[in-house]
């Protein structure tokens, strides 16, 4: 009989091994899923993981890795800080949308002003937009004790409606011949989040993600606020004893994660997406939750996990077009990753013991 036994200390080995095993298990289970769909499982898994990096068109896909990874990492870092403190912002998707709206809104409002400060202003506006959207669940939680999971999640759908309203109304391109969607910011140099080095996929959002990773790493490891965040997540009573004010921490963590999600949205709308459109958001805010956990809520881990998830996004798209795999199968594949990670995670704190079945 198998039995679980609590480890006296969390295993360091398993902390590192768990994500790797989870990826491996996902490959196996995903392969099975693809086989059931009548595809060659080996080919499908290879397409997802190999093709984007070393395939025939890798030179096109590799930059995409940064383009898709940056928002995931940027959002994931913010979420990871909150999750560490036991503050569950599930509505990053909404903050991402609102950040894109406020960021793009500033750019569209001053169009066609050609000045150096347009883009920085948009960055600030994007961060503020995401921050403000996250303040709604934060203030409600602090003031009335509402559940931030529900409120932040529900606000995603509000934000989606807001996005549609903006794309069809105030932000609609006056020269767009009646089509929904705003002006394309890629054609407005002062507001365009262009590639810093052509052909690398490296835009300002990637830089911001990198800074966020370093910032979070230093914060968690070296700063008292990071210590208080970890303490609050692990032992809330001890945190209050240490002098942490829970309300202030809720505001801080939701604020940071909201601002980072807003930034991600702003960099996306002014760069790769280009315009405010009804279908602007593609689920980065939700996928970032997986990224945060896959990365063990550790900044460096989140950076790697973000790239990995970006890889499955890109690989998934290739598999869709080359092998005809349904999009839902790819989403399941990504979901499995979180599922297996949480399952394997058990071994960080527990070990399995074989128990001889004894005769009574």
């Amino acid at each position, binding site marked *: 009989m198998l039995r679980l036994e609590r480890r*006296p*200390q*969390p295993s360091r080995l398993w902390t590192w091994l768990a994500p790797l095993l989870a990826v491996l298990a996902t490959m196996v289970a995903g392969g099975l899923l693809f086989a059931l769909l009548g595809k060659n499982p080996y080919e499908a898994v290879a397409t997802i993981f190999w093709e984007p990096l070393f395939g025939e068109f890798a030179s096109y896909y590799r930059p995409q890795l940064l383009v898709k990874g940056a928002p995931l990492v940027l959002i994931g870092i913010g979420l990871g800080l909150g999750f560490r403190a036991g503050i569950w912002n599930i509505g990053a998707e909404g903050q991402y949308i609102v950040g894109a709206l406020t960021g793009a809104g500033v750019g569209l409002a001053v169009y066609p002003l050609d000045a150096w400060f347009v883009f920085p202003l948009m960055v600030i506006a994007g961060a503020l937009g995401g921050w403000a959207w996250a303040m709604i669940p934060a203030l409600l939680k602090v003031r009335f004790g509402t559940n931030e999971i529900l409120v932040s999640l529900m606000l995603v759908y509000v934000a989606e409606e807001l996005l549609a309203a903006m794309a069809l109304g105030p932000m609609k391109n006056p020269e767009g011949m009646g089509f929904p969607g705003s002006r394309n910011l890629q054609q407005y140099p002062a507001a365009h989040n262009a590639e810093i080095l052509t052909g690398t996929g490296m835009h300002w959002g990637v830089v911001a993600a990198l800074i966020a990773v370093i910032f979070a790493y230093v914060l968690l490891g*070296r*700063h*008292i*606020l990071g*210590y208080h965040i*970890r*303490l609050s997540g*692990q*032992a809330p*009573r*001890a*945190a*209050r*004893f*240490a*002098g942490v*004010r829970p309300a202030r921490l809720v505001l801080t963590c939701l604020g940071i994660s909201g601002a980072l999600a807003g930034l991600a949205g702003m960099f996306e709308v002014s760069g790769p997406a280009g315009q405010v459109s009804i279908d602007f958001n593609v689920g980065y805010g939700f996928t970032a939750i997986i990224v945060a956990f896959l990365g063990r809520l550790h900044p460096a881990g989140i950076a790697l996990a973000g790239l990995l998830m970006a890889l499955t996004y890109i690989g998934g798209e290739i598999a869709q077009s080359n092998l005809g795999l349904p999009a839902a199968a790819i989403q399941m594949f990504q979901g499995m990753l979180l599922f297996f990670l949480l399952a394997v995670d058990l071994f960080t704190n527990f070990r399995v013991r074989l*128990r001889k079945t*004894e005769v*009574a």
Partner: protein
Amino acid sequence: MTTTLLEIEGLTKGYPGVVANDDVSFSIREGEVHALLGENGAGKSTLVKMIYGLVRPDAGQMHLQGSPYRPAEPRAARAAGVAMVFQHFSLFEALSVAENVALGMETAPPQRQLAARIREVSETYGLPLDPFRTVGDLSAGERQRVEIVRCLLQEPRLLIMDEPTSVLTPQEVDILFQTLRKLAAEGVAILYISHKLDEIRALCDHATILRQGRNVGTCVPRETSARGMAEMMVGSAFAAPEGRGRAAGEVALDVSGLSLASPRAFGTPLRNIHFTVRAGEILGIGGVAGNGQDELLAALSGELASPPGAVRLAGVPVGASGPAARRRAGLLAAPEERLGHAAAPDMSLTENALLTGAQREGLLSRGFVRWGAARSFARRVIDAFDVRTPGPDTAARALSGGNLQKFVIGREVLQRPTVLVANQPTWGVDAAAAAAIRQALLDLAAQGAAVVCISQDLDELMQVSDRFCALNEGRLSDIRPASEMSVEEIGLMMGGAHGMEVAHV
């Protein structure tokens, strides 16, 4: 009756890195009250868990009434007539007594029938209990009765009691002892786990003493001195705390008109509390747990804010300040719950040193943590208080209760507080560690700090306090010099409004 009920031979149980029980043998006769004595970590819990079917022995065997006994799970143990009352109760506060009892039964009879049986059993054994009261409203002593009655309904042949008196007033202890004697007279064997020597001498017929997992001897407690048993338990003589009779200085802590609602459901609000503590003095606050101790500690540590003037530190109002500001001002605290309140279980000792040491030990520079300094502070605590651990990188939860408690108290004492508030400083701690902790509190007072010691251990309070008062249902009794008081008087003070009556048997 002298028939052997339970015979234990060569029981051995190892965990990774430690042998919890090593070749333990003894036997319990019917109708006998048998003490299992030992320090924390001596292997008492593991041993009774094996008897109760919670843990499977690696080697050795047990015989119950002559036939082999190997309970695979507690259910099997109960079926064989072995019942256990745990130190920590497993009761649902929001449910009634009868509902709680029903939850623990295989097939529960209808509530009305069950209530009648609960009444019957509780009256027979002198454990007054109303089956329809909500457990959340019961005192710790009454809750224990629920657990005992729950066991007695199974009509056990062996009743295991794990440190049953740690939550009781002396009067409640008397009632419990009468019950246990009555049970024994009816032929029920009782295995009584404790490290309180006086109790064992008063109650038990035989004692088996464990040290580091081994049976180091048996004795007849009535014929052995408390000191003799203590030395068998510890393995060597240990120093009893010394150093009373200091001259009290200026008023260091002044609490006046402190009233606070409890933040927890079923918590106890504080009601108009007044007291002062002078520098160099130890104020003992007795009382049964759950009478506002946690709330009082939180109000003093700064976790609960009060009107500014309700708590004054050397005359300066600090009632509205948070824990960090109070630490800076010199008011430190050590909560009762080690894991999760005084320390974060999964964090290292270094990180836990930072938890309260950040302000006074200068472990921060512009908001950044000086980990090197935190580590050396942790190491100083470990060295000064003889904390047994591989080093400051060990997780707090890997330490034994006594060692972690020494760390928690040491962490505050080394910060040279002007006022230290400790809640249950030696709860669940072995005798040697308890002596060390009490000595540290006495030394701290001798160096001129004011100390508030909240405790339910009367011996401890008598040993350390200069003045004494008791907390009962959130109210503080009059404060009196400890030297003028007897244990009985203190007990009455603690019992206060509970209206304890000695059982009518």
